[in-house]
């Protein structure tokens, strides 16, 4: 199959679907270290299909990506005409100690683009581990709160609520959730997404 052909197919099929949700994220969304169909976007799709059989979910998680990639990736994803954009980015910015202002600007640009294209946005808050220092963590956490308020978008304060730091829900690396962890994330986020539908 050639890419352009797939693309055409992709665009062609899109209008037939009632709703399309795109998850724009990093390794947490991609499901790093676990099977593709066990990552939380797929779990959400399974759950939602019970009530919305025509719904589709695209997992656009990309390991290692930062908020800097949000805008260009969204441009690509908009071609498939999504209805809902779930943004779960920023973890890598935090881990690498990127200037918080830069991350905020990047996310704001992506939100603006989505809104201009009539895509509903869900923003998931990302926090960074305690060891990064109180000040930086607070600054970082505040980005998401500020963005949610300012843009009046649906907000999930903490994507990894109840998952981060719990040994049983994470892979041996202590950073990425395991299969059980992804189930928790699904439960964390499902009600909010359902409300939007």
């Amino acid at each position, binding site marked *: 199959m050639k890419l352009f052909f797939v693309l055409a197919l992709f665009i062609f099929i899109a209008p037939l679907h009632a709703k399309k949700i795109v998850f724009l994220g990093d390794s947490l969304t991609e499901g790093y270290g676990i099977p593709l169909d066990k990552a939380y976007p797929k779990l959400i799709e399974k759950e939602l299909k019970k009530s919305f059989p025509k719904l589709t979910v695209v997992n656009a998680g990309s390991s290692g990506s930062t908020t800097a990639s949000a805008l260009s990736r969204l441009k690509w994803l908009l071609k498939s005409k999504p209805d809902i954009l779930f943004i779960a980015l920023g973890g890598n910015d935090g881990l690498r100690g990127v200037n918080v202002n*830069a991350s905020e600007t990047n996310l704001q640009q992506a939100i603006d683009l989505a809104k201009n294209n009539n895509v509903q946005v869900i923003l998931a808050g990302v926090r960074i581990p305690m060891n*990064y220092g109180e000040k930086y963590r607070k600054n970082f956490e505040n980005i998401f709160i500020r963005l949610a308020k300012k843009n009046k978008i649906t907000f999930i304060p903490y994507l990894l609520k109840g998952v981060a730091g719990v040994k049983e829900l994470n892979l*041996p690396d202590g950073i990425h959730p395991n299969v059980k962890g992804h189930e928790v994330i699904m439960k964390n986020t499902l009600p909010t997404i359902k409300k939007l539908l």
Partner: protein
Amino acid sequence: MRLIKYFVSQLINNRSFSLLFILNLAIGLSSFVTLDVFKNSISTSINSKSKLLLGADFGLSSRQPLLDDKFNTAFDELKQPDAETSIVETFSMIAGPTGQSRLVQIKAIEEDFPFYGDITINKDNKNQVGVASRLQNAEIAWIYPELLIQLNVKIGEKIKIGQTEFVVKAIVENDSAEGITTSMAPRVYIGLKNLEKTQLIQFGSVAWYSKLYKIEYEDFDQLIDLKLDLKDKLSEPSLQIYTHKDVSEQTSRILKYLNDFLGLVSIAALFLSAIGGAFLFRSYLIKQIKPIGIYLSLGMTNKQVFLLQSLQLLMLGVISALLSLIFGFTLSPLLKVITQGLLPFELQTQLQTGTIYLILILGCVGSILIGAPILSQIYNIKPNILLRNQTTQFLKRNFGFWLSLFIGLVFLWALSVWQADSVNTGSLFTGLFILAGLLITGFAYSVLYLLKTFNLFKSLSFKWAVRDIVRLPFSSISIFLSIGLGMLLLNLIPQIKASINYELTMPKDSKLPSFFMFDIQEDQMNALKDITKKYNIDLVQTSPMVRARLKKINNKDFKDLQIDGENLNREQQRRQMSRNRGYNLSYRNGLGIGESIHKGTPLNEYDHSAMTGISLEKRFSERLDVKIGDVLLFDIQGVEVEGKIVNIRKVQWTTFQPNFFILFPDGVLNEAPKTYISSVPKISGKIKQDFQNSVVKTLPNVSIIDVTRLVKRIKGIIQQMSWALQFMTIICLLAGFLVLFSITNYQARQKSKDIALLKSLGGSFSLIRSFFNWQVLIVTVFSGLFGVLVCFILSYFLSMLLFDSKWIVELQTPILSVLGLILVSLLISYLATNKSLNIKASKLLND
């Protein structure tokens, strides 16, 4: 037995044989000893390097705090470490006195870290060994030099780590235990006691907890056993257990190369001396047929003669072994003194007990095995030769000949397996050597046939020479085989060395990277170019990187290939993880730096009509178990892309350039979301710092990883390895030439009788000389060429199969060695002929 003395005096009487045989065997065994000394020295050196990298012998790491009692009980049951120390590593944003903050790696250590090597700090402009206990007593920190600028801090000022302020006491000048992996952030050392005060480590923190151990061990296998036992006992998937050797993949890869190569050289040296020895012994025993006939006529049995002749060999073998041990004991300390300063590592002069035994065994068993095929022909000798004067029956190959040849080859095989520590590798060595022997014999036969059929030169001396060679096929072929195999082994090592060296070739210093940069966004490329232009830097191999997940291989769900089920063991879990992982793809046309196509055709430009071709890295394709023609289907952010493997690439890792497992041609993925990675060639000092700051300021998301230290370290190891290769090669060349010298020398001495005969028939001196020159020329030219030719064939297989490297043809050694062989043989023959010509014919005939 009273008869032994007669056989001793037989040896003394045949002084030239005895000395050359001993010399031959002693050279082989001495090379073996020397190589063993080298092997031990180098692996000790590389070992100690890997110990330095870890700072310890053994370690455990986990993302979870390590509970003492659990490990202590496990260790109690296995092996008590001599000392242990704990380390916690974590990333944190820390702030300098002006409020400028920066991501750093905090490494909290205890007072006895490291066990090996040291952290050199610069304090008050003086370099000194950092004493880790000082870190424990007060809130002080040692920082990597780049942080002085990045945090805008001076020595004596404070930095804020978590909730606590630390005084910067020194900068880290040299960190032997910096680890082989590089980190994206500069390091700050603090005392483990003070880590708690920072409050960085609490629920929700991500840190790397390690315990490092100092464990005295005699044999590295003990550490490996300990590692496996602990794995079983603790059975904790999140726990990493490693020896110091595990710390560096490069180091262990280099060690494997080196070990295999050294094994090959050792075996080649022994094999060389075996060939030389066998040749000498054959000529010697042919001379002894008459005396043996006398022994038999006087009532000795063939068995007695066989045993006594074997005893002779045994004596020679023991003398050779003792000589080479004396050489090992006396000369290697001398060698140590000579090489001090020249060698990048210290020579370990201690011979291992195992080596001593092995040399003795090799001397005894080896000498017998070398002679056994010929010895077994003693049974062909009948006492009636004294009346009949015919010796040809001796040369008939009997059952004993083939049996002992077989036993000898089995012994060689066992030795190769033992040396290489692998059945496959050992069998490969042996198989190729046997193949070489067959090939050379085949070539030799065809040359005899050609010489018989075509009359190349009309001259009388040439005709005589050809007739002599053709009419004594057994003797001629044994000379062809001996010299040919000698030339082969002599050339093989430099040839393999060329291939390995190619693998280890590093680009010029200016081409080696200082930084890797990740996560450069497409729209940031222009800004980045502006910065590089400003600092006059040429980026190397900037590559787009597209994240994808592999969904299908040949239309079969990749998931199907995984092991399903909940109860996966650790190995399976890890495998599962690696198979699940998304891959980073890139696209470009043509090959990048240090790349070559191992198999298949180059990537064609994408033409929108057919399925695109893709290129896979060799090791990766092996891990994925795919081959050319297989179709892989990727999911790129919800879009499926298919590609058919058209080539398998080899990537030379010593270029230190970032590379990709999977490559698409330009044009397929250009629309897909991507980031760029790039490497920055060597830059230094101020520019390095300014460039880094400039990138951080303008492109805050771009990660810069400083690889200078890593590159420097590996470069050191590679240089050491190249040096070692060179040295081994010289040893093998020397051994080879000595063996060839003894063969040709002995051969020349045996001519005296023929010379006397020709002289008595009235042959002129010049005719006799040119007759022998032709003989030497025919034998050396052909056997030299065979040896070199078969060497090319063998080195091709060895490079491919054993060293996994590109086959490089090195022409210098073959040309020089063939020329050397011919000229030296002609000279030896000339001298020997001259000597014989000056002796009265009757005297020679009487002998």
